[in-house]
């Protein structure tokens, strides 16, 4: 093996884990979260909840599109590019959101910080946590200075309930 080929091989082997990590796919994420897609029922919390938290059935699904993994909960909650540790996107006119995703111990944590050009106000932050355990998904969204705007549980429906 000549020197050039050997060097390329060493570089490839050295960086392969990084590439693999960057390209975490839907299957990996489902496994790490111990999560199964399907129909869940929202358990209304005793405290005041957003309208989304009404007693209704929602679908939880993980979609993969050209390497991007998106978690969709019901009609309104969409968490995009959760396979990437960090990503940023245009979230409003003149506003950019930087998103950091972390998957650990069956828990998905998404932190979003939005900065708007020309705006006097400080950047706003939102932290979403979804804890998957035993067919139960506990979801909490904390936004800005307010502690909670939605905190509830969603329980997987048994097949006999469908």
């Amino acid at each position: 093996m000549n020197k050039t080929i050997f060097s390329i091989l060493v570089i490839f082997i050295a960086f392969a884990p990084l590439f693999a990590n960057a390209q975490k796919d839907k299957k990996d994420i489902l496994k790490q979260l111990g999560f199964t897609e399907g129909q869940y029922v929202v358990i209304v919390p005793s405290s005041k909840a957003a309208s989304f938290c009404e007693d209704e059935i929602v679908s939880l699904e993980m979609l993969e599109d050209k390497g991007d993994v998106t978690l969709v909960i019901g009609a309104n909650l969409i968490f995009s590019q959760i396979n990437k540790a960090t990503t940023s996107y245009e979230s409003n006119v003149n506003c950019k959101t930087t998103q950091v995703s972390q998957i650990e111990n069956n828990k998905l944590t998404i932190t979003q910080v939005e900065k708007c050009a020309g705006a006097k106000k400080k950047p706003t932050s939102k932290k979403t946590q979804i804890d998957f355990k035993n067919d139960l998904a506990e979801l909490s969204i904390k936004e800005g200075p307010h502690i909670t705007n939605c905190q509830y549980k969603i329980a997987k429906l048994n097949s006999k309930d469908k």
Partner: protein
Amino acid sequence: MKKLKFLYSFLLATVVYTSSSLAQQDPNLNKQIQQGGAAIQDCKDCKSNKSSDILAQTNELAAVLNKPFECAPGDDPQSCLLIDWLKWKHQNYNKNCQGFFLDGKGQVGPFSKVLAELMTTDIKKNKEKSLFVNDNEQFQKLCPGFDKFSLNQKLAFHGWIFELTAFPENVCTNANSIVKGVNSSAACMLQLNYPTNMRSFYSSGAKNADGTSEKHCQISPKELLTDRGCLSCGFDVYKWHMTKYDGNPFGEIANGKKINGSYWASQNPLPSAAESCFEKYLDAKSDVKKDPKTGKPLFLTQCKSLGANWEWTPRYKFFKRIQRFPLCNTEIAKREVTELKKYLDSKK
């Protein structure tokens, strides 16, 4: 995402489109078209699912889209009714929404044109497998008679659903449409997710028969704020849901409730007691007295005790409005047609 306006517009466009293509099947109609008008006549084999028949009807639709729609003596009464209704809606609906209807000269509005192009393109690609060709259990329930509609009439019904969504979402305009949604900004007349990464998956899920998909939602936020961008992405959202739920854009039903989806997710049927309560107050337009503290109609307190809530008001209205489509065999549609006739008589 907001919920309902989308449907209304689309339906309108479709109806117009359909009617005109049918008109071309008659030599007399061709004569009229040459003279500058497109009459409407129903197809001779409306329920045919042969690819060749479907393609022929679709091509006819596309060919007359830029012609004014007119109704001539001897034309199919149902199609004439649609044309009159679409013109009437243009007159008495919100000005922003006129693009979904036929103007006074019978020209198809710009929103309807976009939707009609999208649907006919879909049919050309997918032929008899197109979701816009097929019968639909949910539509049949909402609009008895749907399964007997011709291809063009079905397209019109889909368009109606789009218009019904665009109206309540942002009064059929992209101006001042960006608002804070649940976990991203919502934008355009259909209140779709503003960031591209929050909506591009809809397009990937809206599969064609050959496994390919359109890319209407994979556009920039700036493009989303155009009429074509918004309606095209909305089309993919609509198709995504239909693909998922066996041709049903409203979602799947479990335990008597609809499974969440997108726009149409919030359109759960009301408990019957709550529906009766809404019927009593909303239809009678007796919701004049409002709670001084909340600003909401007082009757809601009563309906709430029967299982309704404030958020269900648009759901109720949406399902009622769907049934206004003049070809549905519903009491609401009959009332709509009666009102239309009064309007037409007043113009004589």
